[in-house]
């Protein structure tokens, strides 16, 4: 007999919270992109994110890793993501968020391919299935 009741795990709350925040980001991006240019949106996005990043930095209590290669990859991440987001906002300017956001969400398709080619990481079957679905979705949504 099971006496202990099942509790909704705390981590699941945070995962749902993450889904909510990122989902809201897509929604607000659509509202903003109707009026603002991609560059204007990216400027506002960066300024809006700064307080949160500073909050995370404070929470880390100075434990910021300063490995030179790590910093370089981090900065490259920011530059690649920032430039990529310009494309996202440009797409949102002309198309609905309910179509654009799921489509751009397939971006790990390229990460998986690059990790396979550059880092010699192995692809698992779930990821291979995901690649097929990603390609199918790109074709269907392009029509």
């Amino acid at each position, binding site marked *: 007999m099971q006496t202990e009741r099942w509790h909704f795990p705390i981590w699941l709350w945070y995962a749902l919270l993450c889904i909510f925040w990122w989902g809201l980001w897509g929604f607000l991006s659509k509202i903003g992109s109707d009026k603002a240019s991609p560059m204007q949106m990216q400027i*506002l996005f960066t300024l*809006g994110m700064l307080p949160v990043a500073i909050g995370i930095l404070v929470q880390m209590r100075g434990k910021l890793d300063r*490995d030179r290669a790590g910093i370089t990859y981090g900065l490259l991440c920011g530059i690649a993501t920032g430039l990529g987001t310009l494309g996202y906002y440009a797409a949102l300017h002309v198309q609905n968020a309910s179509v654009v956001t799921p489509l751009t969400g397939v971006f790990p398709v390229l990460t998986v391919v690059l990790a396979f080619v550059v880092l010699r990481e192995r692809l698992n079957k779930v990821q291979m299935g995901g690649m097929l679905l990603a390609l199918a979705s790109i074709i269907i949504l392009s029509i």
Partner: protein
Amino acid sequence: VIHWVVYASVAIVLWGVNGLFMKLGTNRVSARSMVIWVTAGFVLLLPLMWTTTTLSDLSTRVILVGLIAGAVNGLGNWAVFACLEKGAKASVAIPLTALYPLCTVALATAFLNERPTVLQWIGIALAVAAGAMLSYEPAPVTTTEKQVPCVQ
């Protein structure tokens, strides 16, 4: 006129490349540190963008929407760390958070009156499933913080 999928592809390609840098970076610094350096990368782009545009033609409402968009994205990143620190398996949590477009779809259909066609619904379903499946990486390398998505 450029098809919107071309713009979306720019995002997919650059975000995809970002994922590779992310993997390389988190091999050397903690995921939290990575978020700080990534944000620094965003800041590096600011002067470049300021020289080509201003915010003077935007209404206060649009400015607020843009700022909040940035803030909630940052909060989403924070929630991923909190989630992994509260004992989530990365192989479960990361694909789960990749379902975030579902929330955008719900909000956009509810509040922006977006009405996808049947064909678009099929594409949306396939894309969301693909995003989650592609993020699935079983057996974390050494720590749970190794795998971090980046959806800035």
